[in-house]
């Protein structure tokens, strides 16, 4: 359920656009925050109700974009860019390294629900390849040592 504050936020978002529907992407972002990092069916229904849209259309939009999670993911989502600029600077080895460290493969979540590991398409930090993001934060110019330290740090969180 959306909190009262979140509903107020949503009211303010809708005012930015000439149509209610245009607020759909920000509304889904807000819903994902409210629902613990993913969009369960009730979140989609709630957004649909608020924006007066058919739930199927909301789902159609939500499933189009990769950053809306349709399944529960780990508390920390590690996304390592594997597109070409990062690939030639060692991204694949970093993914293997993190996977080994956490005991999971690409696209998997640790049993304690703490980490999800994914390969990501170009994150737009090509001049600082290889790079990855955890949540909203970017980590750039990665080396195996740096990656080790970052994962250790997040393990403690």
């Amino acid at each position, binding site marked *: 359920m959306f909190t009262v504050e979140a509903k107020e936020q949503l009211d303010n978002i809708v005012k*930015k656009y*000439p*149509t209610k*529907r*245009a*607020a*759909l*992407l*920000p509304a*889904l*972002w807000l819903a994902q925050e409210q629902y613990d990092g993913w969009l369960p069916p009730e979140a989609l229904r709630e957004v649909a109700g608020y*924006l007066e849209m058919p739930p199927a259309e909301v789902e*159609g*939009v939500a499933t*189009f*974009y*990769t*950053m*809306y999670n349709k399944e529960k993911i780990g508390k920390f989502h590690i996304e390592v860019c*594997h*597109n*070409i*600029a990062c*690939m*030639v*600077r060692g991204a694949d080895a970093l993914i293997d390294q993190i996977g080994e460290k956490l005991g999971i493969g690409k696209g998997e979540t640790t049993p304690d629900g703490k980490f999800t590991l994914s390969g*990501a*398409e*170009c*994150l*737009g*930090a*090509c*001049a*600082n*390849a290889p790079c990855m*993001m955890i949540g*909203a*934060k*970017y980590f750039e110019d990665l080396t195996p040592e740096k990656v080790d330290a970052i994962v250790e740090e997040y393990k403690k969180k």
Partner: protein
Amino acid sequence: MSEQPQILFKYRNVENYNNIDVYMKHEGYAAARKALQMEPDAVIEEIKASGLRGRGGAGFPTHIKWNGIPKNWDKPHYLVINADEGEPGTAKDRELMNKMPHLLVEGCIIAARAIRSNRCYIYIRGEYMEPGQSVRKAIQEAYDKGFLGKNIQGSGFDLDIHVHMGAGSYECGEESALMSSLMGERGMPRHKPPSAPLPVISGVWDSPTIVNNVETVATAAPILNMGGAAYGKIGSGRSLGTKLFTVSGHVNKPANYEFVLGTPIREILETAGGPLNGKPLKFFIPGGSSTPLFPATDKFLDLPLDYETMMANGSMLGSGGLMFFDEGVSVPALMTRLMHFYAHESCGKCTPCREGTNWLTKIHDRIMAGGGRHEDIDLLLDICNNIGGRSFCALGDAAAMPIQGALKYFRHEYEALIPDRSLSSRIYAPLPVAAG
């Protein structure tokens, strides 16, 4: 090496340049004040004199776009900024938004003034949450100083800017898909002329709309400060001014650089520290992953990097993502990764792109796995020919062009991966001898 005037990056190393007070001490908002005192058409004239062309990839003259907005029409006009930087190899807009967000905000004021728009949306890709925060903060500071909102600086001109975050889709960098996404739809492209009016007539919410790249709009502020004619003296031919280039891959100093359009590629390579660890280069991609590659030979390294030269040599300047690759990189392996990317990002709307990118990926996968067939290379080219110019938007072309470039110069690398299963080799191969 030639002198490289720094226009967008002039104050790049000034501490706290993202803060409005610091920004204003360095010519900040002087251009916006100027624009607010000018007639909208006079602003467009300055941009025309500068010769500025779109920096997002297509290179369309900015003043023609701005001039296309109908005059004396009572519908609202919208300014939409394309900050959905997703082209592999390109990371310039991210630095602009992180370190110099006020250049963008000021550029928006100028552009909005020129096209008589009172509402601007900055569409930022979902992954760019940090740049998104940076731009939001800059917008707030501009409101606080009276550069946004009602009656800006007493000029009678109103402007509101909103940040709109995407949610992970390469396709949304395509102008019409971006507009769909801004309106709360799936990020799919829309009909284009001649089947539909241009966005300047009917863009978002059926209203006149201008979609500009971050760098294009950010350049408007320095252009007004120095004068369009002075800006137009930089560069040559129809490639005028400076452009940001993201140099990545196998170089010693990968970074964003500002170069005059037409700077020889070799000079850019040298500025970026030369080949990584001195290892010889094999090829480079001039303008982001969608532009066809060139071998790293003297002939191509000596080319001036501008719109016309790249086009004349069968590639494109694109978004300025210059990527170098050393001799250790396998062209088919790199293309395989790239095809997975395009197949993943194809929006699925039209058949040539949806099916074509999928087959390009499958064929690359089987070649890489050692199961390539003799006819596969021609099949790849055939698929490319059936995508190019036949897909609904440019994503299909973007997937086909790199393969065409790769096969033009490195066909032998593909051939080497395909086992010889020709009839003659089967007939004359000695029969295995039974054991015993």
